[in-house]
């Protein structure tokens, strides 16, 4: 299997679907000739033409809302929001319209739309271009929320998202865009709402996703190599609807849970994860408190050093592991 980047994997996922299915189209700001702010869609305008790769004005409300309208009437739009922070501009159309249409209409409509959007900090773009707001979307019944942590997952989860009948917020990870990993050339589907054990271990369970997942994998390997600590890592991949089973099973096995995400810790998705563990049979096996490591309680700062410290670092993760194992 060749190695390609996370960004290329996303592009391949979109392209497979657009090649075989005329109902799939793609719209967003600067996705055409510019190739997307992060180069994800380079070449797609040339392959699919202006009708199916639609550059839009800067109008996030109409962008998300017209995606929903196209979806309800038979298309499968892929809507790119250039930075996930800008979803706030179209939040009503996402959360009050797209997410609720099916339910409000008594099940008599579907909204098969994907909102693809790059999330996270690490690019020096500061407070309004660096957020990880998955907790917002994950709180909205009717939405699905997917956060891929590898190139392989990105392609397979994106294809499943495009063919899902519900609105999916697909949160790509900016700083992973250039990270390479093995990805099959052909089309493949990773089912939504299936958590994956990304590393097996027995001493402690880390639940993490997105950009933090590879970081945790490295920390785990390092601690294994240096100290023989044996960490299990579970990646939920889809946050809503959440497949909590493998998380509970893992924590019941290891007796220790550490949750790591980039988003601001307070009110972040880690709260949901901790709460589900704390009210499951795993509770009875806990040998230590359930620990979370999330982002600092501040907007993302510009200064590179501050920015780095605004999100979980390997050092913080190691320190937490040691404390929990103590």
């Amino acid at each position, binding site marked *: 299997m060749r190695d390609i980047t996370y960004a290329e994997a996303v592009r391949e996922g979109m392209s497979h679907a657009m090649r075989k299915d005329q109902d799939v189209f793609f719209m967003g700001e600067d996705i055409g000739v510019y190739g997307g702010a992060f180069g994800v869609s380079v070449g797609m305008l040339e392959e699919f033409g202006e009708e199916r790769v639609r550059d839009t*004005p800067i109008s996030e409300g109409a962008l*998300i809302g*017209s995606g929903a309208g196209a*979806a309800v009437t038979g*298309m499968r739009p892929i809507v790119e929001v250039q930075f996930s922070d800008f979803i706030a501009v179209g939040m*009503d159309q996402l959360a009050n319209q797209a997410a609720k249409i*099916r339910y409000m209409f*008594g099940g*008599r409509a579907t909204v098969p739309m994907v909102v693809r959007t790059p999330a996270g900090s690490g690019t020096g773009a500061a407070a309004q271009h660096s957020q990880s707001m998955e907790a917002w979307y994950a709180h909205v019944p*009717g939405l699905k929320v997917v956060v891929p942590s590898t190139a392989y997952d990105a392609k397979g989860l994106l294809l499943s998202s495009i063919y899902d009948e519900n609105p999916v917020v697909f949160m790509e990870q900016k700083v992973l865009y250039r990270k390479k990993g093995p990805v099959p050339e052909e089309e493949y589907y990773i089912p939504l709402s299936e958590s994956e054990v990304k590393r097996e271990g027995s001493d402690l369970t880390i639940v993490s996703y997105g950009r933090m997942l590879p970081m945790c994998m490295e920390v785990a390997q390092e601690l294994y190599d240096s100290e023989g600590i044996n960490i299990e890592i579970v990646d939920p991949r889809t946050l809503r609807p959440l497949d909590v089973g493998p998380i509970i099973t893992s924590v019941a096995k290891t007796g220790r849970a550490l949750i790591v995400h980039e988003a601001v810790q307070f009110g972040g998705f880690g709260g949901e994860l901790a709460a589900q563990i704390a009210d499951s049979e795993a509770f009875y096996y806990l040998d230590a408190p359930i620990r979370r490591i999330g982002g600092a309680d501040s907007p993302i700062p510009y200064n590179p050093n501050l920015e780095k410290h605004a999100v979980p670092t390997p050092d913080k993760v190691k320190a937490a592991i040691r404390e929990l194992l103590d």
Partner: protein
Amino acid sequence: SQTLLEDDMAQTTTPAKSLGKEKLKDMYMKMLHTRNFEEKVAYFFSRGMVHGTTHLYAGEEATATGMLAAMKDEDLMTSTHRGHGHLISKGADISRMMAELLGKDSGYCKGKGGSMHIADVERGNLGANGIVGGGIPIATGAGITTRMKEIDRVVLSFFGDGALNEGVFHESLNLASIWNLPVVFVCENNQYAMSFSRKKAFNIEDLTKRADAYGIPGVNVDGNNVFEVYETAKWAREHARETGPVLIISNTYRYKGHSKSDANRYRTKEEIEEWKQLDPIPRMREVLEQEKMFTKKELDEMEKEAADNIEKAVEFAENAEEPSVDTLTDDVYA
């Protein structure tokens, strides 16, 4: 763009005859159904027999009926919080509407939507909307589908004068304009957004200036004259199909309070009475009589039939089943 309401109000522009008896009867019945439906709902609410709130269309019937009479069955529509009239004119089943208002399982939304969310996607009704302006981007998206799939139809998007000041109105009209989408945007200017007068909400007298900002045609129409609305709608439909979006400002008036709890403190009884002189239903009847399309008796019978139909709908709705609590979390996901 045409001249303003004040000038146009009195005149009927079209010989009704040309529409034919069947169509005219259908239109008149829809207006009657709407009025009777709303009166019944008002009664229910005043007696605390229905849950929640509702926004009644009484007084504005000519807009929905005139617009939809010029549309084809396959045309799509987005509606508003004040949507009963749109639904009835689009041919919705009044019984299932009433059942929805009573929260019943056989209502359009299985009792989950209520007055503000009645939809019937299969028949082209993409839904009422509880968010002011919320349906405008959705209509725009339906326009994208229509163009991409090369379907010969248009999308009608209703919204109020209040919605003209929501950001999504602006964004959507621009998008529809640059992509030449087949959308007929219809602003039902009933002079108020809840308590806020159009005169305070805008610093322009002629609301079609909003169309100029997107390079699309804007037309004022006497929204209480069903024939004028119809003629304008016919033209607008053709323009939308062939060229691109249109904005129609249908100037009209709401008789009832904004919603169930409205003391009408922001307007005078006199103003309401003045507008009632322009009631679209008697005005249509007058034309039908003048042009001798129907006899007085026929028209009286229609009126009775309409009232009876509402009673039947009420009976259907009252006898319908409540949804089971087990369905609470059904239909969240497909």
